[in-house]
């Protein structure tokens, strides 16, 4: 287990380094000089060469590129992600402010995904070819074809705007934007009116992955139910409930748990669209804003944070895998 942990940690560091390098190279293929862009207010004015030179010096982009790269990596190792071109705020501070909302949103979205997705998937598998099964399957297919931003906007419009205008009962109306009181107990449990702000974005963020998870659960359960050991369990006369709980579910849940873990990591970065529509102060929406502004240190730094969260989530999944399945931790690295 120890060496497995070491190997996986090393590969996480490698992925982070590689990601930073790719993004760094990408940014220095930029056709335009970020200092010029900032000095000209986004290309609206003719920039003063002296101002541009000063900005280049300030950002450290007057030095050779390789030196910028090594300096950046060195700084990242010590926890310094640079400062924003636009606001001069340290990127690490922006990250500290923007990460918690994203983590909370992803946490609740994964909870919804797990309960609704696994629940309906199991139901589909048990009552195969029933009306419920077809409804689940078709909903899942259609949901994966609807753009998240359309879904988010329509839900916001229905329960956030239309509901208020037409005096729907309080339980069916949700505030359309932001986080309200923004008060949390234990980091993740919303209090005050915060939970009302959380409902819509959490469901929207969970929607597509819930649909996919329901289908994965269904397939996995159907496959497990056809396995020999399940037939044996039935043959020896175990009650159906026992067969399901002890022999089918345990095995069928392995891929499902994997997907859940990966999804948590993905959602932190993939919440871009949801955060934008609901105007939530998360990492994704900040990356979009900064990308539009060519605020490269912020995009780069926050991308690294997103990669770190994603990497840690998949590390956790792998560890739980290795814990439950000795074959994984005893080599076989393919």
């Amino acid at each position, binding site marked *: 287990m120890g060496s497995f942990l070491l190997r996986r940690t090393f590969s996480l560091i*490698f992925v982070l380094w590689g990601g930073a390098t790719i*993004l760094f190279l990408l940014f220095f293929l930029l056709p335009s000089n970020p200092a010029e862009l900032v000095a000209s207010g986004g290309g609206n004015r003719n920039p003063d060469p002296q101002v541009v030179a000063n900005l280049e010096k300030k950002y450290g982009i007057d030095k050779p590129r390789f030196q910028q790269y090594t300096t950046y990596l060195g700084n990242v190792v010590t926890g310094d992600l640079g400062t924003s071109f636009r606001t001069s705020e340290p990127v690490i501070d922006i990250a500290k402010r923007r990460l918690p909302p994203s983590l909370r949103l992803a946490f609740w979205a994964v909870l919804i995904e797990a309960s609704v997705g696994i629940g309906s998937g199991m139901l589909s598998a048990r009552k195969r*070819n029933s009306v419920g099964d077809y409804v689940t399957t078709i909903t899942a*297919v259609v949901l994966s074809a609807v*753009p998240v*931003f359309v879904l988010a906007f329509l839900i916001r419009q229905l329960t956030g705007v239309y509901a208020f205008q037409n005096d729907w009962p309080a339980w069916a109306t949700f505030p359309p934007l932001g986080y309200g009181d923004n008060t949390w107990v234990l980091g993740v449990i919303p209090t005050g009116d915060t939970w009302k702000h959380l409902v819509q974005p959490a469901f929207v963020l969970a929607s597509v992955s819930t649909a996919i998870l329901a289908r994965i659960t269904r397939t996995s359960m159907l496959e497990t139910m056809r396995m020999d050991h399940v037939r044996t369990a039935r043959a020896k006369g175990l009650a159906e409930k026992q067969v399901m709980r002890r022999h089918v579910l345990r095995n069928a849940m392995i891929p499902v748990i994997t997907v859940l873990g990966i999804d948590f990591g993905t959602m932190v970065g993939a919440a*871009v669209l949801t955060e934008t529509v609901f105007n939530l102060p998360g990492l994704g929406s900040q990356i979009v804003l900064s*990308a*539009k502004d060519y605020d490269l240190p912020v995009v780069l730094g926050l*991308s690294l944070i997103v990669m770190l969260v994603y990497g840690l989530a998949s590390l956790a999944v792998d560890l739980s895998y290795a814990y439950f399945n000795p074959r994984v931790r005893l080599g076989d690295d393919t």
Partner: protein
Amino acid sequence: MSGFLTDPLPDPTPETVIDESATAPPDPETGVDSSLSEVGPTRSLRADAWRRFRRNRLAMLGLFIVLFLIVVALIGPMLVQDPLDTGGISREAPTNQHIFGTDRLGRDVLARIVYGMRLSLFIGLVATAAETLIGIAVGAISGWFRGWPDTILMRLVDVMLGIPYLVLALAMVSVLGKGIGAVIITLAATAWLQTARTVRSGFLQVRELEYIEAAKAIGVPTRRIIWRHVLPNVFQPVIVLVAVGIGSAILAEAALSFLGVGLKAPAPSLGLMISESQSSFTTSPHLLFFPAIGIVLTVLGFLLVGDGLRDALDVKDT
């Protein structure tokens, strides 16, 4: 025990359509029990797959949608009005003259959507074609030569998979700028990873088979072995990935345009139209609904075809 008595019957759902030959119902067209004809020597693998595909209603619906999209893309522009003509009344609700209404600048929404779907299709096809070529090249080199090229390429894939898709796309677009070319490059450069992995694992399996050894033994040149003997045999999962990939590319383009980093304003991008429609949703909902239906229809078509292909070709793990 009821489950035991009912479940062992072959699953009529697509996932297990492969083992339905045992108790398949008589073919509705010929009236012949298909379990008999299925073992017949005359039908090719491709014909078999097509039969399975045809039996899958959702897949056929998807195929129908895709054909409809192609027809719209080819002859649609001849039938609709000029999408750039700003002569109409601003944000008019659907009328006889503009059956999908007009947008803020008085342009005909139906025309914009027809051109938009054509553009989506174009971007989806070109980006997926490029992505597939990159994926096949990388996967083939990795899987055939193994050794250090494999290590380097697969580490690159690991790293790029570690960067969340939308973040990587945003970073690329912020470098390449807006426009159709930039979006296509971004989509292709971020989407080839899965194809490369799939092709590689196919190569790793096939290259050990005996007929490859035989081909080597009689002195077939390596390039010919790769092209004629290995590639065709790893192609089935790639076809599935292509169908699904077109759908995801279209969704991704819409998302990038919606976020304001995709296509530029006059382009008839469906994502852009949806983004523009939001401020006036309460007064003119048609500006959101019609483009949204356009996207959903397009993506749905390709996803259904992809799913159907996966079942018909019995591809696992893609």
